[in-house]
């Protein structure tokens, strides 16, 4: 959807970021929210909020009640967790390397200091 809405790459990325913000600040840790509540909470128009919710719903990140007219939505926490867990795993692998690099750099700094003293 993002791609079809915005052929320009920067606009796509901005759309993606706003969608993440909507999840993080609008829905995480809360119960149900209606579109108008979200419009009030974010400085975005109703059609914009609605298009984000459509994407999030099709990705399974939120569920919406069909019976009520306002179609209130709420986060599907397990789904979001699966996504954030994945990024955390990527970070962990890199961070393991980087911690060793920290130690190596500290050593190199020390060596340089000693050489300067000589």
């Amino acid at each position, binding site marked *: 959807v993002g791609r079809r809405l915005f052929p320009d790459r920067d606009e796509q990325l901005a759309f993606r970021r706003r969608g993440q913000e909507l999840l993080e600040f609008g829905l995480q840790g809360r119960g149900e929210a209606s579109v108008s509540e979200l419009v009030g909470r974010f400085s975005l128009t109703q059609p914009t909020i609605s298009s984000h919710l459509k994407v999030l719903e099709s990705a399974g990140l939120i569920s919406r009640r069909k019976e009520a007219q306002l179609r209130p939505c709420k986060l599907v926490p397990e789904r979001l967790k699966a*996504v954030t867990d994945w990024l955390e795993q990527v970070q962990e*692998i890199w961070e393991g390397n980087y911690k060793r690099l920290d130690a190596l750099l500290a050593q190199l700094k020390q060596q340089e200091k000693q050489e300067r003293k000589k």
Partner: protein
Amino acid sequence: MKPAEASLPSDTEVLVKRSFDAPVKLVWRAYMEPDLMRRWCSGLPGWSMPVCEMDMRVGGKYRWRWRSDENGQEFGCTGEVLEVSPHTKIAHTQIWDVIDPSDSMGSEPSIVTVTFHEVNGITNVATSIKFASKADRDAAFSTGMTDGMETSYKLLDGVLVEM
């Protein structure tokens, strides 16, 4: 220093950022000298980097291999250096060979770009891995070292790509 931050700026990219408490000339050495690099770039706990050969000139080749201490399993990657701007940027191609031949890591090489930026003795390093296609990126993160990520990753695909 704050832990590494990984993000997905587009559906074919992975970006990892980290800062180091050292001047760029030392960080640069850790990336350019094989004997230094293999000391830190060993990947997961219980793995080492027995092969770290690199000719860090434009057009030069490199070969990195990792081995599990526990069962001797190996995997690695090779590539060609595309750009070297001292203390600023390294870019190279990257092709992986994997433990399980049925794992597809994608036929096209990915492009890895590492940029360095020093501010007041702190060096910020950004690593961008740009895959030839989304399918390649997906494959790269569901094999070898990244066991168990596949399920999460497939979910993520559906999400971030559409957003």
